[in-house]
């Protein structure tokens, strides 16, 4: 299982690109952290998620 934005998903063995698409995130407007480290966009397609990984997918929103 992989934790994505706080929820467990059964996506071990898939790439970050595949998982973002599968879950419905728009790759264009987001940034991704894998185990609290930034994952550069160019690595989404080649990075395979493993059991126990923690992923954060963030974007800009309104704020002061």
């Amino acid at each position, binding site marked *: 299982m992989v934790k994505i*934005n*706080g929820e467990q998903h059964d996506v071990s063995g898939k790439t970050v690109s595949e998982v973002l698409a599968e*879950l*419905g*995130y*728009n790759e*264009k*407007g*987001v*940034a*991704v*952290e894998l185990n*609290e480290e*930034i994952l*550069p*966009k160019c690595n989404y397609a080649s990075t395979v998620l493993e059991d126990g990984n923690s992923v*954060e*997918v*963030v*974007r*800009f*929103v*309104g*704020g*002061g």
Partner: protein
Amino acid sequence: MSESKNDKLIIGGHEFDSRFILGSGKYSLKLIEAAVKYAGAEIITCAVRRANTKDQENILDYIPKNVTLLPNTSGARNADEAVRIARLARELGCGDFVKIEIMRDTKYLLPDNSETIKATEILANEGFIVMPYMYPDLNAARDLVNAGAASVMPLASPIGSNKGLATRDFIQILIDEIDLPIIVDAGIGRPSQACEAMEMGAAAVMSNTALATAGDLPVMAEAFRNAVEAGRKAYLAGLGRVLTRGAAPSDSLTGFLRD
């Protein structure tokens, strides 16, 4: 007139004509363009949050391209979390500006100055243009300067309170003693308060809630713009002195009716 024409706000080597920094929170994305236009703003803040798969609207689609984005680290409770958010913000690809905002206190949302100093040092070393939000304390402000801050952003009163310049005298100390742009952030609720901050010599004013909770956001944005410009002009002109006692006539009292 000549000095006000070349009167640029310079932050981290970037020049701005506008001295009114706009927040983008608590109002519709559809109002951002009008807010920016009426505020005359060249810098707008935003926050970083978890993306969700249902709401695909991207705030960047609503922000005019010539406006500098100033992501904040709101939500961070310590320096490490602020650094994480700042790095994510940079990864989102809108430049190196970051407004550090670190709060441990959830009731008054007061910034944690010591964690803010730590985060400032780390991020300045990574090449960020760091604009720390802080409680107006001279010692902390000096530490922020030494840590590599590009400006210092003292609060006027608690975030979102619209209470105005509760910390007035302490902001004045920062303006007088700190050799960086002092940008008054948080709590400015009315144009008159923004104007007063600028008359005091603040380099800029940042506001969000005052606009977001106003009856007519774009009109209030314009009122703030005018107030900030008026206050800046008054500061550059040099305010007239205040008498501690007595009075001084504006015109000669002699020359008629008495000898």
